[in-house]
C-alpha cells in the first residue's frame, strides 16, 4: 500500500508549471504548438506545372515550352538517344549570360551594360571552359527559346574577345553604377536559367525506373535544391546572399539536369545498371 502522504513520483504534479513535461518543452498554447510546425515544401515540379498553365492561358507573353513527355518519345529508343544527347549538349554548354561565381559579379555588370560584347566570356575563369571561338550556335538559340528568354542581339559578336585594356578601363565606370540594378540583372539571369534548367530536368527525368545509385544521387540533388529553397524563403536576405543562393540553385539544377540526361542516354544504350528500382 503506498504512503498517501508521499507524492507519487510517477504522476505529474498539476500544480507545477511543467507537470508531465520534465524537459519543459510543452507548448504554452495551441498557437505556439502550431507555430513550431515546420514549413512544408511543395512538389519539385510545381513551378513547371504552373508555368505550363500560364502558357496555356496566355497570361504572359514569354512562353516556356511545356515540359510534357509524349508517350511516343518515351517509347522510341532512337528518339530518346537524340533527346538525351541534345539535353546533354544544352546542359554542358556554358551559359555566359549567367554569372558562374560571385567573383564574376563585375563581369555580370559589364554583361548588362554592354550587351554587344560580353566581357564575362573574355574573362571566363578556368573552372568554366570557354571555346576560343563561340559562334551563335543553333543549340544556344534553341536553348534561349526554351528558356523563354530572348537570344542576345549580338550573340555572334560574343566570339570577339574584348581587349583587356578596354575592359579594365570600363570596369571602374561600371562599378560606379547603381549596384542594385546590377544585382537585379544578375538575379534575373539566374531566375531565367533556373527556370530553363527546371524545364530541362522535367523533360529528362524518368521517375518510373532508375538504378539504386542513380535514385540516391537524384534524391540528394533534389534535397540540395530543396535546402537552398529553404534558405531563399528566409526573410531579410541581403542581395549578396540571395545572389549566392540563386547561383548555388542554378549549379545544383545544372548538375541534376546533366545527371538525368546522362542516365537517359545510358538507359537508351541498354546500360540500366546492376540493380533496378521502381520509384513511387
Amino acid at each position, binding site marked *: 500500500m503506498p504512503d498517501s502522504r508521499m507524492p507519487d513520483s510517477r504522476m505529474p504534479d498539476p500544480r507545477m508549471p511543467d507537470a508531465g513535461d520534465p524537459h519543459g518543452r510543452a507548448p504554452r498554447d495551441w498557437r*505556439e*504548438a502550431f507555430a*513550431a510546425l515546420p514549413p512544408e515544401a511543395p512538389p519539385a515540379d510545381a513551378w513547371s506545372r504552373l508555368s505550363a498553365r500560364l502558357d496555356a492561358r496566355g497570361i504572359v507573353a514569354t512562353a516556356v515550352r511545356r515540359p510534357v513527355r509524349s508517350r511516343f518519345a518515351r517509347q522510341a529508343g532512337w528518339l530518346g538517344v537524340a533527346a538525351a544527347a541534345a539535353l546533354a549538349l544544352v546542359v554542358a554548354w556554358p551559359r555566359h549570360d549567367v554569372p558562374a561565381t560571385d567573383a564574376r559579379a563585375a563581369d555580370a555588370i559589364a554583361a548588362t551594360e554592354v550587351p554587344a560584347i560580353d566581357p564575362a566570356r573574355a574573362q571566363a575563369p578556368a573552372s568554366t571552359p570557354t571555346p576560343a571561338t563561340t559562334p551563335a550556335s543553333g543549340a544556344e538559340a534553341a536553348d534561349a527559346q526554351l528558356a523563354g528568354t530572348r537570344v542576345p542581339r549580338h550573340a555572334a559578336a560574343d566570339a570577339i574577345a574584348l581587349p583587356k585594356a578596354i575592359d579594365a578601363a570600363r570596369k571602374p565606370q561600371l562599378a560606379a553604377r547603381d549596384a542594385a540594378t546590377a544585382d537585379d540583372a544578375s538575379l534575373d539571369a539566374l531566375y531565367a536559367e533556373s527556370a530553363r534548367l527546371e524545364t530541362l530536368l522535367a523533360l529528362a527525368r524518368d521517375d518510373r525506373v532508375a538504378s539504386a545509385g542513380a535514385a540516391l544521387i537524384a534524391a540528394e540533388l533534389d534535397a540540395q535544391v530543396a535546402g537552398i529553397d529553404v534558405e531563399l524563403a528566409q526573410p531579410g536576405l541581403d542581395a549578396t546572399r540571395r545572389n549566392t543562393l540563386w547561383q548555388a540553385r542554378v549549379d545544383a539544377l545544372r548538375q541534376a539536369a546533366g545527371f538525368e540526361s546522362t542516365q537517359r542516354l545510358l538507359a537508351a544504350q541498354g546500360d540500366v545498371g546492376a540493380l533496378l528500382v521502381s520509384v513511387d
Partner: protein
Amino acid sequence: MGRLYRVRRFGAVAHPVHRMTAATAPASAFAIDVPAALLARARDGERAAFEQIYRRFERPVFTLALRMCGDREEASDVLQDTMLRLFDRIGDYRADGGAPFWGWLRQVAVNEALMRLRRTKLRGGEALELPDDDGLPDDLLPPPSAAADAAALQRALAQLPPATRSVLWLYHAEGYTHEEIAALMARTASFSKSQLARGSRRLRALLEEPVHA
C-alpha cells in the same frame, strides 16, 4: 536484369526543414518583402518577376493549404490555383494602403482551400466538421507535451475533419477571429467557436492516446 525494389525518391535524404524547431523556424510570411519594382514588373506580365514572387511564397501558401486540406495533392492544387489567381489579379493589390502582400495572398489561398473543401463535400466525401452533439465545456487547458512533437501533432491534425482542422489552424496559427472565419466559411461565429472547442478537445485526446508499437 536486376531485382526490382520499391523506394520513395524523396525519402532517401532528410529534408532540412524537418530539423527545424520553434526557435529556428522562419519568421512569419508577413516579413517576406515584395519590392515595388518587382510588383510593377509582374503587373507588366514579366515571367521572371512572376517566378520571383512565386518562389517567395510557394512554401507559405503550400503549408497553409496542406494544414487546411490535410492532403499534399490537394494542397499542391491549391497552390497552383492560388498562384494563377494571383497572376490574374495582381493588378488589384495596392501596397500603398499598408496592407502586407502576404495578407492579401493568404486570403486568396484560404479562399481557394475552402472552395476545394466545399467541392469535396458536394462530391459526398468525408464529413467536413465534428458533430455538434457532445455539449462539453470549452477546452481551456494548455496542449499536452506531445504537441511539441511535430510529427505527432501533424498526425493528430490529419485525423480531424477538414473544416474543424481549418478552423483550428486559421484561429490559432493565422490569427483570424471567429467573425472572420465565419465570413470565410459562410457560417456563423458560433459555428467557428464550437468547432474550435471540439477540435481542441479532439486534438488533445489524439495526442494523449498511448502510442502502440
